[in-house]
């Protein structure tokens, strides 16, 4: 029996809670501009500092963004959602309560990809505490200071149903959510900067069972990598507990990415009765038909739909379609290049050039090719020249170097740099010279060692400065060895 427990396969059940900082011009409930690394406490006013007598006023742009998110996640939008006060004492919370939504959220019951969305609501961000001392946590800090610049930044909280079944799936889905939100242009969605934050509720159950096990909540996973690692670590921890006959305790765990250690938050930090109270200072949030129409009109094509369309209409492989769909600017540049290429263009070849050679030349983590000097029409022309054999692949890469650095017309670059494909008598001469110079390589080829062909091709490329086509060189070599052209 004990063996059966030890051998049993377990299935993780994971739900995600995501906080997204909206990139509105001003804060959620006051007129302060959002802060991007300004000096501490320079983006504050009596309202976001919680001065006596001040009142919140809901930011219309934040509501607009939240409605767009609700629509993009295929949620049902509440005709009349309510703000609540979530009460707790902490120095990063100037009013002693956070204005959030509780029993009637702005949106609920949606879906993104294979994961169902439980709810989407609006709230305000807390200020930032900085603890002096060794631990970086308030309990053993020598002193703590508060920067209220972040306090009151609009947040959207997105809660999924427990539909995620692995850490890898959690990471992959969060990437889809990030791409979707980025496409909506409602947030910077940078995990390392805190504009996208993810907590995970994790439990395990014997594979195939429908009931849910006791869950734990993981916090502080501030990158995709840490999310995957943290969730995996927690799954392993829970499996070890259950396999050794123990029981998982419901608790909130702090993931330390440096050590990989999961440690429980002190009970004082989590044992809250938030005493939710309908916010008497705000009226219910009832989107008008105009607001809904405006949000609907602002919805662009979303990454999941775009990937599907690129696969279907342009026959791109799934991973390439996903890359182009998830990176809006890259995808836009790609589609502009395809349409510049006209009906003769080869969308798959163009996709390879954009996601391969071009991306590699743009550097930077998430570049926008439209900001570089390459015009979609130039790249389309270059790819066409390669296909027509006017320029060899390797020489074309050199042309692309010039396009990225200086821009221009690829035909003129080929012309002025003498990069037209080497062919005819010129190429025959070079090939024959190379074969003569490398008799041993020729012998190996003759003996059936195809790898030796590389030496000949290399020599030809050196001689022609890359203008030759590798396939053409091979054909000429075999022709000279009396083989059938292949």
């Amino acid at each position, binding site marked *: 029996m004990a063996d059966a427990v030890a051998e049993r396969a377990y299935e993780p059940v994971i739900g995600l809670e995501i906080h997204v900082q909206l990139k509105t011009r001003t804060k959620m409930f006051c007129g302060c501009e959002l802060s991007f690394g300004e000096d501490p406490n320079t983006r504050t006013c*009596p309202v976001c*500092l*919680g*001065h*006596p*007598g*001040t*009142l919140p*006023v*809901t930011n219309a742009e934040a509501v607009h963004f939240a409605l767009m998110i609700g629509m993009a996640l295929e949620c049902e939008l509440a005709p009349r959602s309510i703000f609540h*006060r979530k*009460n707790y*004492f902490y*120095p990063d919370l*100037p*009013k*002693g*309560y956070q204005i959030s939504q509780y029993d009637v959220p702005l949106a609920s019951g949606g879906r993104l990809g294979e994961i169902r969305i439980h709810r989407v609501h609006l709230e305000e961000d807390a200020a930032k505490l900085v603890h002096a001392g060794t631990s970086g946590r*308030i309990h053993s800090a020598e002193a*703590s200071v*508060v920067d209220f610049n972040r306090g009151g930044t609009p947040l959207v909280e997105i809660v999924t149903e427990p539909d995620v079944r692995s850490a890898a799936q959690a990471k992959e889905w969060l990437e889809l959510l990030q791409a979707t939100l980025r496409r909506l242009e409602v947030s910077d969605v940078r995990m390392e900067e805190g504009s996208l934050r993810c907590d995970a509720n994790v439990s395990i159950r014997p594979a195939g069972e429908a009931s849910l096990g006791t869950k734990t909540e993981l916090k502080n996973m501030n990158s995709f990598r840490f999310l995957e690692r943290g969730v995996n670590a927690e799954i392993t921890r829970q499996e070890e507990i259950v396999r050794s006959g123990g029981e998982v305790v419901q608790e909130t765990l702090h993931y330390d990415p440096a050590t990989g250690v999961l440690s429980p938050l002190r009970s004082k930090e989590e044992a809250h*009765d938030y*005493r*939710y*109270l309908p916010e*008497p*200072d*705000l*009226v219910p949030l009832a989107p008008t038909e105009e607001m809904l129409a405006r949000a609907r009109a602002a919805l662009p094509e979303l990454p999941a739909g775009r990937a599907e369309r690129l696969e279907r209409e342009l026959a791109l492989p799934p991973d390439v379609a996903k890359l182009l769909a998830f990176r809006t600017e890259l995808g836009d540049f790609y589609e502009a290049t395809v349409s510049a290429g006209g009906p003769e263009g080869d969308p798959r070849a163009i996709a390879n050039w954009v996601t391969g050679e071009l991306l590699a030349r743009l550097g930077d983590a998430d570049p926008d090719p439209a900001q570089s000097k390459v015009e979609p029409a130039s790249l389309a022309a270059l790819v066409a020249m390669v296909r027509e054999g006017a320029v060899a692949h390797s020489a074309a890469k050199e042309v692309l170097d010039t396009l990225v650095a200086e821009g221009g017309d690829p035909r003129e670059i080929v012309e002025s740099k003498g990069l037209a494909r080497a062919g005819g008598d010129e190429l025959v001469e070079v090939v024959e010279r190379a074969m003569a110079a490398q008799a041993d390589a020729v012998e190996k080829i003759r003996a059936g060692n195809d790898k030796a062909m590389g030496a000949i091709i290399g020599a030809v490329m050196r001689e022609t400065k890359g203008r030759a086509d590798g396939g053409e060189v091979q054909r000429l070599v075999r022709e000279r060895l009396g083989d059938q052209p292949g």
Partner: protein
Amino acid sequence: MSQAVLELSAAQAAAQIRGGELAAEELFRVYRDRAAAEELGAFLWVAEEVPDAPADGPLQGVPVAVKDLFCVGDVPSAAGSRILEGYRPPYTATAVERLLLAGATVLGKTNMDEFAMGSSNENSGFGPVRNPWDETKVPGGSSGGSAAAVAAGLAPWAIGTDTGGSIRQPASLCGIVGMKPTYGAVSRYGMIAFASSLDQAGPLTRDVTDCALLLSHMVGADPCDCTSTGLPEDIRLPVAERLDGLRFGVPPELTGAGVDPGVKVVFDATVERIEQLGGSVEPVALPHAGHAIAAYYVIAPAEASANLARYDGVRFGPRAGHTDLLSLYEETREEGFGTEVKRRIMLGTYALSSGYYEAYYGRAQRVRTKIADDFRAAFERVDLIVTPTSPTVAFGLGERTEDPLAMYLSDALTVPMPLAGLPAISIPTGMSDGLPVGFQIAGPAFSENRILEAAHAIERAVGFDGAPPRG
């Protein structure tokens, strides 16, 4: 000269200043000197200088006493609490800002029950206020300082706030006029919050005309307060001398048990006067009004427990306890808040706690809805509802401080209206035991002009000679 100035109503003083018969500086100095020298405890702060050029407007140069609950830029504004001692806000409340724009000047800040929690002004963190009619009596609360200042001629008029009766009850106990407008008529921005869904600012004045004039410059929707609506029509200066065609309702629930006989005599006489003026009077039922105090003392403390969480010693006000975060919170709040405030924070915290919310807060909100429904039904039959403002005349200092429930019952007749968001005025209509008795007139939402007209007619007919002995 100064005696003649004191006899002027605020509206008369405003007219004289605009007519060039009276200098604004003169008016200000007369009141400033009186306010600075007063011994009732009505003022917590008095302006030292004659303000520079007031705005050109209908109230030009008329000083106003402002309850300490209102934030006034760079002027001490502590809501009567030690926890805000020395706090000078970086901004000014919208209601005050509007008065300044109309030409009024701030004379001083008036004493009050701490965070407006009280009915006698004895809960002030800065000492009690004495009733100018009898200095052994309380002035009522929480706007006790404003009411006493107006009654004693220390200010031409004043503004206060009313959550469960905090304008009307002290106006009644001090023999002056006080009005709580419809919820939303006046912006709450800059009013230090007690119970957000109930708090409303309003005037405390010597007569009904002053009340209308002052209120007319306070009302208006404010983009900084999304619960503010303003009024659908401007406040007019009342002119009525008759009540022909107006139907008055007398609710037995608010005029019977608990009302002192002396108060009842004055009330009945005033009702008779209404009939003489052509108004009709009939009984009207408010079946749930008897539960108003219970509902109020759940809802108001619940909201207060959240509203007062910001007084934590972190950003403003005095701070105590430096060893760790918890001691900072605990000692700052232990030292800063008075007993009644702590009691209500505890009540409110309990009422909102997980597992108790429905039984307390949820049920109180349902009672509140019933009370509003009662009024709605009543106002289908009558135009206005009248009651005594307070069950008793001013009581003795210290008399009820040991018995919170007795103190809470001082508001029994004024609490139902704010629970329903309705406007109501208190005007003095007689004396009992040598102390003034207030008469309350309530109307449907946004019926301020109707209430003011009726109050004006009754005021004229009663001819209340409204001044305590003046020092």
